[in-house]
């Protein structure tokens, strides 16, 4: 069965005065119907740019998708027209952003904003749209929904605004929901509420969810599969259980070891990954993690672009970028 979304060798570059930033540099992955996939990495690894590329929301200039393909439900998203793309956004693929306050229009009521999507994509009239808006707010657990649809975003708290975003995103029953750091700006107990709502609703409606986050705990709780990104590329990919139980790549292992766990019983010093992620204006040849790998002196990774590490399957469904030093355990 074909996957719901298939990304092949995607390259998204930003052409700036300081040079070309290779934000996403040859990334291939897919997501099945109904599954939850997490895209994990730190600032600048390219995870948000990947999501924006899927929806063709990359600002041009300075950005451009320069290579690769994105296939959604049989459609080649990089070759459809702007009008066809607009019919897909908010309808068949929906997105939730990190900062709910800046994502909602401050001068329109919540009701107006929710109605917009259903009237545009589903052709509902005013009454039907109003009814749908109330139902959606109730679905995400906002009390007194009939009164609240007449309120403005500033009259809602951060957590409530994010619920409104979820309601808007799910209003047209999309097959794919992209959540870009949906709870980073929220308190921990509110984060738990929001993620539970997202998980329950997507499971009820059969929506596939792409969660973009740097929080490994969120990944462990909600994701079926995980892609770990570093410097614009995927370094490891597999089921959540496999990635956490048996991380293969030095970066994945470094990341896991550097996060303090609530259930640690002994105080062990946090392992660190020395140094900084690379500047993406410079072309990276060979393994991008090499400068930070503890095995740098022993690394045989060729420095030509043709020999960039490629993903190889180390166990069923578990893929790792095949730089031999990054793959050796300490």
């Amino acid at each position, binding site marked *: 069965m074909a996957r719901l979304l298939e990304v092949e060798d995607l390259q998204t570059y930003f052409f700036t005065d300081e040079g070309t930033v290779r934000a996403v540099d040859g990334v291939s992955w897919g997501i099945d119907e109904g599954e939850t996939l997490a895209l994990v990495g*730190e*600032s600048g690894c390219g995870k948000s740019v990947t999501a924006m590329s899927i929806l063709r929301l990359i600002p041009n200039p300075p950005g451009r998708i320069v290579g690769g393909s994105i296939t959604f439900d049989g459609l080649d998203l990089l070759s459809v027209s702007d009008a066809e793309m607009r019919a897909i956004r908010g309808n068949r693929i929906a997105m939730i952003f990190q900062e709910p306050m800046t994502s909602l229009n401050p001068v329109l009521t919540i009701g107006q904003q929710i109605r917009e999507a259903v009237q545009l994509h589903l052709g509902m009239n005013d009454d039907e749209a109003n009814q749908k808006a109330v139902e959606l707010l109730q679905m995400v657990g906002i009390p007194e929904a009939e009164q609240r649809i007449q309120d403005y975003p500033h009259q809602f*708290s951060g*957590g*409530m605004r994010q619920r409104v975003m979820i309601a808007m995103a799910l209003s047209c029953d999309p097959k794919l929901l992209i959540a870009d750091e949906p709870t980073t700006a929220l*308190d*921990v*107990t*509110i*984060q*738990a*509420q929001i993620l*539970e709502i997202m998980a329950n609703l997507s499971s009820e409606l059969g929506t596939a969810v792409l969660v973009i986050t*740097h*929080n*490994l*705990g*969120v*990944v*462990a*709780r909600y*994701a079926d599969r995980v892609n770990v990104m570093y410097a614009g590329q995927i370094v490891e990919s597999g089921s*959540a*259980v496999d990635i*956490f*139980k048996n991380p293969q790549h030095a970066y994945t292992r*470094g*990341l*896991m070891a*550097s*996060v*303090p*766990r*609530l*259930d*640690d*019983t002994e*105080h*062990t*010093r*946090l*392992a*660190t*990954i*020395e140094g*900084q992620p690379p500047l993406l204006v410079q072309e990276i040849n060979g393994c991008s993690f090499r400068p930070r790998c503890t095995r740098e002196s022993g690394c045989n990774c060729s420095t030509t672009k043709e020999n960039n590490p490629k993903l190889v399957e180390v166990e069923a469904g578990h893929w790792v970028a095949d730089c031999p030093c990054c793959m050796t355990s300490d």
Partner: protein
Amino acid sequence: MTTESATTQGQSDAKTGETLLSVKGMKMYFPVTSGLFVQRKVADVRAVDGISFDVKKGETLGLVGESGCGKSTTGRAILQLHRPTEGSVNFDGTELTELKGAGLRRFRRRMQMIFQDPFSSLNPRMSVAQIISEPLAIHGLYKGAERRDRLDYILNAVGLNPTYARRYPHEFSGGQRQRIGIGRALAVEPDFIVCDEPVSALDVSIQAQVVNLLEDLQTQFDLTYLFIAHDLSVVKHISDRIAVMYLGHIVELAESEELYLNPVHAYTRALLSAIPIPDPIVERDRERIILEGDVPSPLNPPKGCVFRTRCTKKDQCKCSDTVPVLEEVEPGHWVANCSCCMTK
């Protein structure tokens, strides 16, 4: 002495150590004024509403809670950056709320602060050398050539190359800027440092570097920390004891491991269950306590037990008039004694 045994040593010292800081009944209210021509006070934001705790010499006390609980305000009020509305702050035998002017400035040498935002907490027009030397100049320490030596020593201690001293903050990464802020706090040889969300704005792998640095410095310079953060995983890692705050009150206070293994207060239990653990197998079996609603506004907090409005037992709660006080349920383990919040 390895870092491991040094830390354990620090923890056992903390258990028997003397009290360095003692806070009693501290309140911090911020007036809200209204009016077109004449500003009149209409309400108070009750950021901190009567808290008491001690910090022992050499220990790290974690202060944890969500936005608006008053933890950052507590840190600033202790250092007298805000003057407390009520209550006492006793630092090594001296009542800080009674000090002012030159007397207070002298005490500031002994208590310093590290801030959350590595981008706004450094003056962009001052070089690293100027930033770290400024407190030395203010307190009249290390004159002449000794000041240069002190600067190099501090930069090395925080893991920065002394040749960077002439550079400006914008030339550094977030993690490096945080190191500069730590160096600035360390320069005057303080006894006590309030760390106000020092790693929240940093990437995961950089957080680990800075947390390790703070622990190493604590051992090396015999420091006492008040570590304020909302990330309980990080707080539990670095702290000996933890105080949990909600809407201006402390609801629970215990040793870190004890708090995790035996949380008593309903809010602590909800907070712990909300924090995901990076392990899918463990996560599958964990109990999830999801709180309803949002945190009430500190302009109009609920009367009596402030957690009442979100407690799952709110229909049975009798604590609508008396404010719960901290009660010792086990040695060293204190809980705000609202009976419904304390039962599972």
